[in-house]
């Protein structure tokens, strides 16, 4: 399961992206509304013009109809005139001899009446054509008016639809931004409250590419699952029990994360990369080189929400004190538990009262588990030089000594209230324990070069095994060597 680093910048950027998108949607909605208004105005104006045309058409149609009636009447009258007019008339003609006789000739009045009737019929036909044209025009006007009225209705519906889409998305965007903001706030709260960092300045944190201080705590990996769960867990008290947290703790392990802060005594003090020399003071001070950055994925139930803040761990090689002696043992400690305010490892004896996490050095080194409920799993590589004793202080003060020269990887630690279940792999054998360990104590002696080589060899082997967070799955096969 791939897991990406998400930090406050990501949150801000994504939130901004949502904002841009929502703004664009708003812009579309707004411009659509403007355009819709303009269209509505245009359509209304056009409709008004058409209604005016329609009135004229209806008037013209009525006038044409009257003309038709008038023409029809005229035709009728002319027909009557024609009918009453003899086609021929008899005319008395006197010839050259002075004799008179009657002749039948075409009646000019008839011809005139006939022409008048034809003219009236033509006018009637013309009036009828005009009337028909008015009627057709009126129908077209009415159709177009209906089209415009329908367009107005459609426009209103489209506008409602668009506004609904825009408003819904804006609401969704607001929700998304609110969650992102909450995630960012919680992240900052965690950083400021639990790590003591100024969340705004992010002092001590670096980007993943190291060495470039930035204003935001980039090195904290923030899980989307946490983001998703936060809404549900926001009311859980800061010191919630493991059982409360457990359902939301992811079983995940990611390898290859090489970025992060150097956790020292529970506080992010420095950043480092492979090959860096780091000088720190812890119970007398120490120098070391960062050997490598180990893949790490630990789980923590912490704060008002449960997350898997993840810190890359630095593996440190023992350094000599100039006399060929390694004054300090070294161990790789992936933060296994909560990191709180109680920081500052003063000495080994009090270390078990410190919260876990960090690289601890000392002739007597104790890597303590947190007293607060926590769930954690990760890789813990411990160098146990020859002759040294590794003691697990278990519940009731019982102890178990690990074989000398051993390196083991803690495969998982789970907290149940104040009790812990520890699983570790030691020399290929799974060991598991439960109880209430006050700490893992290392009682190293001054190691020789051979010891150091052996240590590194074992560390390499253990590192290759990386972490396996499937604690529960492995539990059945685990022998309880640590009780």
């Amino acid at each position: 399961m791939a897991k990406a680093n998400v930090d406050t910048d990501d949150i801000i950027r994504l939130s901004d992206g949502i904002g841009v998108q929502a703004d664009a949607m708003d812009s579309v909605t707004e411009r659509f509304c403007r355009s819709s208004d303009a269209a509505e105005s245009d359509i209304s104006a056009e409709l008004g013009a058409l209604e005016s045309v329609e009135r004229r058409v209806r008037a013209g149609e009525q006038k044409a109809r009257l003309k038709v009636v008038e023409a029809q009447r005229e035709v009728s009258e002319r027909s009557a005139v024609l009918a009453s007019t003899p086609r021929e008339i008899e005319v008395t003609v006197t010839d050259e001899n002075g004799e008179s006789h009657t002749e039948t000739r075409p009646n000019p009045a008839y011809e005139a009446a006939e022409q008048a009737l034809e003219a009236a019929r033509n006018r009637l036909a013309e009036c009828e054509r005009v009337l028909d044209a008015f009627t057709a025009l009126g129908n077209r006007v009415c159709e177009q008016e209906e089209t415009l009225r329908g367009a107005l209705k459609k426009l209103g519906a489209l506008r409602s639809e668009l506004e609904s889409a825009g408003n819904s998305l804006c609401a969704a965007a607001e929700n998304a931004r609110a969650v992102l903001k909450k995630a960012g706030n919680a992240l900052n709260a965690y950083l400021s409250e639990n790590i003591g960092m100024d969340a705004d300045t992010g002092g001590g944190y670096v980007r993943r590419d190291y060495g470039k201080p930035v204003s935001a705590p980039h090195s904290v990996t923030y899980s989307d699952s946490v983001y998703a769960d936060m809404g549900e867990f926001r009311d859980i008290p800061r010191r919630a029990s493991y059982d409360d947290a457990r359902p939301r703790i992811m079983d995940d392990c990611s390898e290859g994360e090489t970025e992060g802060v150097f956790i020292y005594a529970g506080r992010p003090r420095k950043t480092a990369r492979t090959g860096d020399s780091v000088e720190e003071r812890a119970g007398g001070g120490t120098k070391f080189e960062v050997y490598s950055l180990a893949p790490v994925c630990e789980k923590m139930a912490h704060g008002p929400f449960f997350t898997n803040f993840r810190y890359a761990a630095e593996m440190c090689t023992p350094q000599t004190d100039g006399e060929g002696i390694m004054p300090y043992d070294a161990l790789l400690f992936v933060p296994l538990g909560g990191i709180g305010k109680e920081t500052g490892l003063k000495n080994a004896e009090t270390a078990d009262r410190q919260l876990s996490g960090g690289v601890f050095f000392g002739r007597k080194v104790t890597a303590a588990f947190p007293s607060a409920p926590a769930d954690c799993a990760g890789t813990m590589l411990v160098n146990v030089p020859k002759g040294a004793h590794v003691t697990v202080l278990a519940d009731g003060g019982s102890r178990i000594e690990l074989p000398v020269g051993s390196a083991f990887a803690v495969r998982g630690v789970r907290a149940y209230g104040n009790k812990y279940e520890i699983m570790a792999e030691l020399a290929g054998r799974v060991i598991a324990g439960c109880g209430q360990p006050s700490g893992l104590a290392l009682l190293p002696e001054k190691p020789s070069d051979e010891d150091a080589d052996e240590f590194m060899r074992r560390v390499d082997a253990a590192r290759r095994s990386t972490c396996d967070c499937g604690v529960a799955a492995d539990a059945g096969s685990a022998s309880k060597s640590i009780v």
Partner: protein
Amino acid sequence: MRISDGNMRELADSVRESLSAVKRAYETDWNDPVHDSFYGYIAEAEKRCAAMTAVTERFGQLCESLEHIDAHALSDECGMLEDML
């Protein structure tokens, strides 16, 4: 009649582009299981963008459907008929 669509398609495209940008950023940077959660928003946004695009398309079609309407031409035609009376 001519109705300006206010470059609605261009606007809708800008919405889609900005949504794509958010989506790309999300997919790039938030590549983990809680995609589903945020994808709720993305899916909603896509749905709304699609609705918005559809609205703009229909708006454009509506505008086009009105292009043949010309009250002035009809008025002129009416005037010609009136002259014939």
